[in-house]
């Protein structure tokens, strides 16, 4: 217990202090992106890792959040910051409807349905360009020139998201989520309405993903359907972030997000310009290989299989785990 609270203290402290040590806006930008991915990855993980419903459609909520902010500006001339208020609830509402449709399906069928819904959103937002701006996209001018407000906002969002998940997972809902993941039939016979709690999980998850989307609009200042509803760059990335860090662990997606963003940035800059140019083209490849490696050898991700990793280095044999906590 003591160690856990240590970790919970140290992580935010390091991140809080980070801008003090690093004043390059570029590196701050990298960490801001990582923090945004912490939110998306953790939200996805709440639904997939803890509740067992693998979504391939988190771009939907990200997009809804981003467009909530963007459309306010485009149609009403309101500051996109209002989107930070509207984006979450909108995504949540859409999440509820999608859950209502898709939770009839289990396992891989649910996953497939979310891909389909995601693509439908993607294409419809492109098609109704009078309303959404279509592929011309929505562009705003950032409110702040400094990175600091965005940095702390992203940090706050990530903190709020992780904290909410910690709290939820310690409550009745958390117990119910995991029960549904472990065995839906058993859960039903324990008095748990699988449908209701899957929906709740999806709503929390979509709420934070929507917030991340609204943040993206404000920070990146440009969106179009290809960017925010991207199956590959948002939905699947969210999954890969979760997998690399560790599905079903509180901190896994956070770690995964940092790994993903750092690997991609490192390789995109050709390992800081030290390596030949072609290396920069390999950034997605390296990440793909990393994903395959993790799935093959660390099924529970970096955080979930932490013991396995440390034992690899210390040479200790892995002790059979007879106890431990799932939450």
């Amino acid at each position: 217990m003591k160690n856990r609270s240590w970790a919970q203290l140290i992580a935010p402290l390091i991140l809080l202090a980070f801008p003090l040590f690093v004043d390059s806006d570029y590196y701050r930008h990298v960490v801001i992106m990582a923090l945004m991915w912490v939110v998306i990855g953790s939200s996805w993980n709440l639904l997939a890792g803890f509740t067992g419903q693998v979504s391939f459609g988190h771009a939907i909520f990200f997009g809804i959040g981003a467009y909530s902010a963007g459309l306010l500006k485009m149609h009403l001339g309101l500051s996109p910051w209002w989107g930070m208020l509207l984006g979450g609830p909108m995504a949540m509402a859409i999440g509820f409807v999608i859950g209502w449709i898709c939770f009839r399906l289990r396992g891989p069928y649910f996953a497939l349905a979310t891909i389909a819904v995601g693509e439908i959103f993607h294409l419809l937002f492109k098609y109704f360009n009078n309303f959404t701006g279509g592929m011309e996209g929505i562009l705003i001018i950032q409110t702040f020139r400094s990175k600091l407000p965005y940095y702390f906002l992203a940090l706050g969002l990530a903190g709020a998201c992780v904290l909410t998940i910690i709290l939820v997972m310690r409550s009745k809902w958390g117990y119910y989520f995991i029960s549904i993941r472990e065995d839906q039939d058993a859960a039903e016979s324990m008095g748990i309405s699988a449908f209701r709690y899957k929906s709740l999980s999806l709503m929390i998850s979509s709420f934070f993903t929507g917030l991340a989307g609204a943040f993206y609009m404000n920070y990146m200042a440009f969106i179009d359907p290809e960017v925010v509803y991207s199956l590959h760059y948002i939905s699947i990335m969210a999954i890969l972030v979760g997998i690399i860090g560790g599905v079903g662990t509180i901190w896994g997606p956070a770690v995964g997000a940092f790994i993903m963003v750092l690997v991609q940035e490192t390789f995109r800059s050709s390992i800081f310009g030290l390596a030949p140019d072609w290396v920069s083209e390999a950034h997605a490849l390296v990440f793909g290989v990393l994903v395959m490696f993790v799935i093959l050898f660390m099924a529970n991700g970096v955080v979930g299989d932490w013991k396995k990793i440390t034992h690899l280095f210390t040479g200790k044999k892995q002790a059979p785990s007879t106890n431990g906590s799932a939450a």
Partner: protein
Amino acid sequence: MSFFEAIDITKHFGGLAAVNDLGFEVRQGEIFGLIGPNGSGKTTVFNLINGYYPLTGGNILFEGRQINGLPTWKICKLGIGRTFQVVKPLRRMTVLENVTASAFNHTGDLKVAKAKAEEVLDFCRLGHKKDFLASGLTIGDRKRLEIARSLATSPKLLLLDETMAGLTPQEQGEGVELIRKVRDSGVTIIIVEHIMRVIMNLCDRIMCISYGMKLAEGLPEEVANNQDVVEAYLGKE
């Protein structure tokens, strides 16, 4: 008003009748045994009672209220708990977490639920293993966990599905004792069991079914000596 009543319940899978016009009544506070050869439809009956399968025909009344058509979790909330023949431990949760999840049935408070879970675990003599992952339990403990989890929902009626199968004789003895204790705490029980020694020992009344139909119903000795029942079990000569 009877405590629990199944009226002419029928279940077809495809064209096949797994349960056919079966009617029985369970009185409050008794242990009611449900026996029959393999594949005779006992587990199907349980699945019908707790709403896992919809009925093809008939009605199920619990405390005078019709419960067929309700979803499983609602039936559980009304006070019918069940265990599974093939145990369904929530594998990546500890024993305590398993039972706590179920103890939330009538409370939203973690402390209350945990306290209730600890109490139930002690009652089931699983307290010393509460921090074990459910996947690491022996079969005996898993069956106990299954009972503990259903007990934690505070049921009025408990459906036990072959909780003794695969246990050592000693474990069976402990199981019988546990089930008695449960009944004595005021829970009505319907038990499906293959091990006749257990059934004969435990039950107040027994019903034997075969091909989804009732063969006999009555006191244990009566049923055990019923010619149809003997034939169904041992086969005709």
